[in-house]
């Protein structure tokens, strides 16, 4: 088991306790022998164990034997050049790839809270309620702000008006959007700015109380100021959610994440504490990528 000194800066929640946790592996953790890239610290929320994935029914694998653990209550960034499979891996975690008929996990398991999510008895609908997703291009429905946030609860059958009101307010507050929209909850979501729309999408996602938040390049369509707001929000949300973020922006990865996984051509090259990856990567390829020599 690799133990690395933690960066205190990125761990406002758990602080120095992590060091002691790291010495005594949690039940959810796999051992170093079966998993070459174990969680450096903390309890594993998502265990990715030898996962290969194919979009064309097994002919070519776009992910090759990926293994690593994503710790609970932390922000984990997935970086790598375009086409390296990081978004694919993210979409495996809430089974959004099921939408592609011929897609298939060809080997390995993804376990979230100990449960293999590709097992027969797992309903992807239930899984997606627990594992929320924020997309690259903000995609609010062309409805009112209120309806957007209430959508997830409404499709779950919540009809109670006061319960919905409460959930909408709470979610918008947690997404740091409440102050800006509280007087116009009934106006169209499309009247908001891009950054506000993305925060609305985050509010919509957290309204159904997921445990994990998957973010697929959430800031790539936003300007620097809106990006900064989202990054602040991510820092606040990691208190409650385990966040996995795919990003092309390496500065963003250093700013928001505790762990970073570097992918290249469908393989996990290196996974470690973010500060370690960016200051002292152990694989030369990682260094070449983060210093901008390729990708």
């Amino acid at each position, binding site marked *: 088991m690799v133990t690395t000194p933690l960066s205190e800066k990125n761990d406002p929640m758990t602080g120095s306790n992590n060091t002691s946790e790291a010495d005594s592996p949690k039940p959810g953790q796999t051992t170093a022998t079966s998993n070459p890239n174990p969680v450096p610290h903390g309890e594993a929320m998502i265990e990715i164990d030898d996962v290969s994935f194919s979009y064309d029914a097994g002919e070519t694998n776009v992910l090759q034997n990926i293994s690593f653990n994503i710790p609970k209550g932390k922000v984990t960034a997935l970086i790598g050049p375009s086409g390296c499979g990081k978004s694919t891996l993210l979409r495996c975690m*809430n089974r*959004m790839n099921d*939408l592609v*008929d011929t897609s298939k996990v060809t080997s390995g398991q993804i376990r979230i809270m100990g449960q293999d999510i590709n097992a027969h008895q797992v309903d992807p*609908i*239930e899984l*997606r*309620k627990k594992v*929320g*997703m924020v*997309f690259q*291009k903000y*995609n*609010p*429905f*062309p409805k009112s702000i209120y309806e957007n946030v209430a*959508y*997830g609860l*409404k*499709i*779950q059958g919540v009809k109670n008006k006061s319960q919905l009101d409460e959930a909408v307010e709470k979610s918008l507050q947690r997404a740091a959007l409440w102050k800006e929209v509280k007087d116009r909850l009934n106006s169209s979501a*499309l009247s908001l700015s891009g950054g506000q729309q993305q925060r609305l*999408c985050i509010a*919509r*996602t957290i309204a*159904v109380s997921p445990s994990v938040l998957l973010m697929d390049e959430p800031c790539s369509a936003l300007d620097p100021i809106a990006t900064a707001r989202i990054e602040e929000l991510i820092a606040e949300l990691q208190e409650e959610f385990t966040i996995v973020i795919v990003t092309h922006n390496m500065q963003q990865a250093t700013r928001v994440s505790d762990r970073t996984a570097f992918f290249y051509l469908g393989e996990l090259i290196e996974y470690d504490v973010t500060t370690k990856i960016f200051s002292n990567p152990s694989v030369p390829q990682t260094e070449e990528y983060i210093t901008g020599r390729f990708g």
Partner: protein
Amino acid sequence: MTLMAILTYAVIACAVFIFFDIARKGLPVLMPVFSEKGGEVLNTDFLTRMPETLVEFKDENGEEQSMPSSDFIEFSKANPDAVVTDKKANAYSGGGIVGPLVGTALLVIVCMAAALVVGIGAAVYLNEYANQGKFVGMVRLAIMNLAGVPSIVFGLFGFAFFCLFPLLPVFTTVPSEDRSLAAIPFAEWIPFFGGGYMSFEGWGNSLVAGGLTLAVMVLPVIIASCEEALKAIPKGFREASLALGATKWQCIRTAVLPYATPGILTASVLGVTRVAGETAPIMFTAAVALKAKLSWSAADGEGVYWLSNFLTDSVQAMPYHIYTVAARIPRTDATAAMQDGSVFVFMLLVMFFASFSIYLRIQYRKKLKW
């Protein structure tokens, strides 16, 4: 290049010429104030009376007169001594066109109700549920080919299937003696149905047979445009909905269909114009040249039996009426009014639907932008 431009404008010139020719002849019939003789602003008789036989005659002063047959009967009663010479009767050319207008409206309603339910269902299945393989490709191709089938073929199909096919039941108190295959009686005490028969005799020449025939004909167009509307929905809506834990059907119902409505609506309004104008499919299945009463006053019985009677009664229809007065009646000064007026009113109707569909599209585009 110039040649192509000329050809393009020639098409438009032809269309404009046709339009103005119809309007020049038809407008004075609908609004006599524009005719040479002058008159009232709106010819309400033309819009509110059923078509009748037009009687032409010369009165005692040798002046030519013409009036619908019911008026002529009144006239003869009021003036029993009047000398009438050179009496001529022109079928279908007197009175107004309310019968065909109402019949066309009923046909369009039955047709669109059936076509939209089946069409949207088929489009949702093909676009959202079916595995996009070779088989679905072939199904789609077959549907597209249906759009190219001549409408008279649909008419014959409808005649064979909806009018004659004896397993289609009607509810009636008097089953047809020669056509009924079997008639199941309902006991008196059964609510709504008591005292009549469910008779398996086919629907005959009827509103429902014509409407369904038209629906089959317009289905390919509806399915194709519904599919286009569904495809135009951004992927993000579906993904967002599914990622929030929606089932496939919830996703379609709440995040796809509502935003496809404008496209579906525009397509169906254009479908209405097409359906309203078809003659061949209704010739064998629904339309008759002359009816004394409107469908709802002609239907007898009560409740279910009234409805069954209403739906299985034949109707008049605008395109068939135009065909009748244009092809079967000689054109004289007296009959021209019905011919020109019918075409003009029908053209206005089609233009109204076409502009309504454009208006709807603009309205929805304003409202739903993404």
